[in-house]
């Protein structure tokens, strides 16, 4: 039973980590390698608001931090990525450099040690199907499902969301219908960064705010997206569940030692069988040929 309970939890944690990365890529075709840095930035801003600006209420600190991260994401596109859009290698180098600068800047600026933490929303735990699980993880599962649902509604029933989908499906056709490509890219970077921040707010209370977590989140986001198919939201969720359950099963029946290898092995297998990922559309035709 713990496989089911913690498999679902682990999978939703992975999908929350990678949803922002997928969203940005699917709409703007920019692989945002600063994703992990934005994740940690949100956590650190929240910590600063809670601990350095006394009396800042937790919900307000959370909303402000996510808001600031959205703005940072938008600014990254508006002032840096807009100039190199379409040049894939340059995009990768630029976003990776931004991520490095942010993370190492945070370390240099004082984010060192293990005492930077965010409080859990609710302390304690309860039994589900006879398995003990803490409230924070239950909240993560609920918030994760709600996020998927809201994203679906946003992209299917909201004008901005529909514009984002339009660009994701066919940029030229969408532009002919009057959708501003750069503006949607800015919006996608802002929302993608916000999703990274939202994941941070949910996940960082489980442990502590450390620079290294930024790199780990990026690795998992890339692993999930490669397996699910770059830019495919459905693929992201499916891949998260594949890796999430595979990790739990590996720990239970093989050895905890191999849990990290599972994600890497899944990438290699995916690349060998279907390089575009399970639901990937990009270059699918070339692969068939």
């Amino acid at each position, binding site marked *: 039973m713990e496989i089911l309970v913690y498999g679902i939890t682990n999978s939703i944690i992975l999908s929350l980590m990678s949803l922002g990365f997928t969203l940005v890529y699917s709409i703007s075709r920019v692989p945002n390698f600063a994703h992990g840095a934005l994740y940690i930035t949100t956590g650190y801003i929240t910590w600063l608001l809670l601990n350095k600006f006394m009396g800042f209420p937790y919900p307000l600190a959370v909303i402000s931090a996510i808001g600031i991260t959205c703005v940072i994401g938008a600014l990254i596109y508006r002032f840096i990525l807009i100039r190199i859009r379409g040049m894939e290698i340059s995009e990768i180098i630029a976003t990776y450099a931004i991520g490095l600068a942010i993370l190492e800047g945070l370390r240099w600026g004082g984010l060192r*040690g293990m005492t930077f*933490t965010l409080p859990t929303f609710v302390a304690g735990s309860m039994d589900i199907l006879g398995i003990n699980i*803490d409230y924070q993880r239950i909240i993560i599962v609920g918030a994760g499902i709600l996020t998927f649902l809201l994203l679906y509604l946003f992209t299917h029933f909201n004008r901005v969301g529909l514009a984002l989908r339009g660009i994701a499906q066919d940029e030229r056709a969408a532009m002919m219908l009057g959708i501003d490509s750069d503006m949607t890219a800015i919006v996608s970077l802002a929302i993608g960064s916000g999703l990274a921040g939202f994941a941070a707010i949910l996940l960082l209370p489980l442990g502590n705010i450390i620079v290294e977590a930024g790199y780990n989140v990026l690795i998992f986001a890339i692993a999930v997206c490669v397996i699910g198919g770059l830019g495919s939201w459905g693929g992201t969720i499916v891949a998260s569940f594949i890796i999430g359950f595979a990790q739990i099963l590996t720990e*239970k029946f093989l050895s905890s030692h191999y*849990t990290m290898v599972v994600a890497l092995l899944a990438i290699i297998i995916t690349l060998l069988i279907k390089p575009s990922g399970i639901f990937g559309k990009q270059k699918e035709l070339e692969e068939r040929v």
Partner: protein
Amino acid sequence: MKKFIYFSILSFFVLFCFPHVTVAAEKPIVIGAPLSTAFLYGWDAERGIKLAADEINAKGGVTVGGKKRPFAVEVIDTRDLEPGVPVSEALLALEKLILEKKVDFIVGGPVRSEAALAAMDLLNRHKKVSILTTGVLTPAYSKRVEDNYGKYKYCFRNTSHVGVMMNEFITMIEDLKKGHNFNKAYIMVQDVAHARGGGEAMKKALTSKGWTVIDMKIYPTGTVDYSVGLIDAGKNGAQILFLWMDMPESAVLLKQWSDMQLKCLPIGFVNAAEQPGFWKASGGRGEYLIVNLVNGGNAPAKITPWTMKFVEAYKKKWGLEPEGYGTSSSYMAVYQLKDAIEKANSLDPDKVIKGLEDSDIMGVYGRMRFDKKSHQIIPSFDPKEGAVTGIIQWQAGKRVQIFPPKLAEGKVLLPPWMK
């Protein structure tokens, strides 16, 4: 006119000769400190070294060749604790200290075992006496010195290693067995050499003492979920949860343990739980955790008269208590070096080596003397005999020394859900 000439000559003399008097103050003895400064074991060691150097300088410095010479400290970031940074980075940093900064002695790191072992040849090549004070827990370091004294005689270590720590843990766990009828343990370690070694050694030692070791889980660095292992430990009735991890993510494990209210006591070498801020950062969920800080004095304790003096001096200079492993040993290394230089009355490496081998001082964590063959600090449970560990338990937000029994300032407490 004559007055003007006299005044000019006097001014010239004051302007150009007086500064020479200041500069002519004795040339400092330069200590090079290669440390991974972005990590606790690096920055705390740096603070310890600087505090000791300042104290010694304030008292006039080191007496050598009939003169009083001050210590100067050159710190370099080896980055060896950062993930993915190759050993060569630490070696380059060390070489820079030796060749560019022209340091006389090395105190501190490199901090990671692999880097420190690789650095031994470099120290030999440049004939630099080094006292390792933080991070490196592999017994291989002192064994190498013992096996090849002629080559590695420059290398000393005034802190503990896995072998010594294991003996401390076993003695303490056996005490718990007697006091609480514990006999089942679960081991969780990080997938790095020293932790795996520690876990294996603990498994063997506990089994030989009649304990049932339910399982030993090895977690890759960066693991953020320990639920399967913890549930397994709970289901199988583990009473001791032995941990050996230096990754920050081990904080997740401790939070999960507390939230699940598992009926087992966590004990181990847990980097995330060393700092005074840990209790607050964990929201109090670090309560009852027992941590080995490797050397006494890395948290407030009454081991020798010097221990609390050091803690107070540290607090005064840096504004907080010593934070963890590497602090008291780095501080003491500077005093040991001073003692050895004064004994040798020279900076000549061979004479200083002899001085260190003969050095015997009552320090912050007990009697400080090196084994003459392995250059490893001699450990003991009695501060009058050797260097004493600092095993603490988090009790009401404070780090309380609970081992060795002779120096314990509190009894081991069990969580209310274990009673």
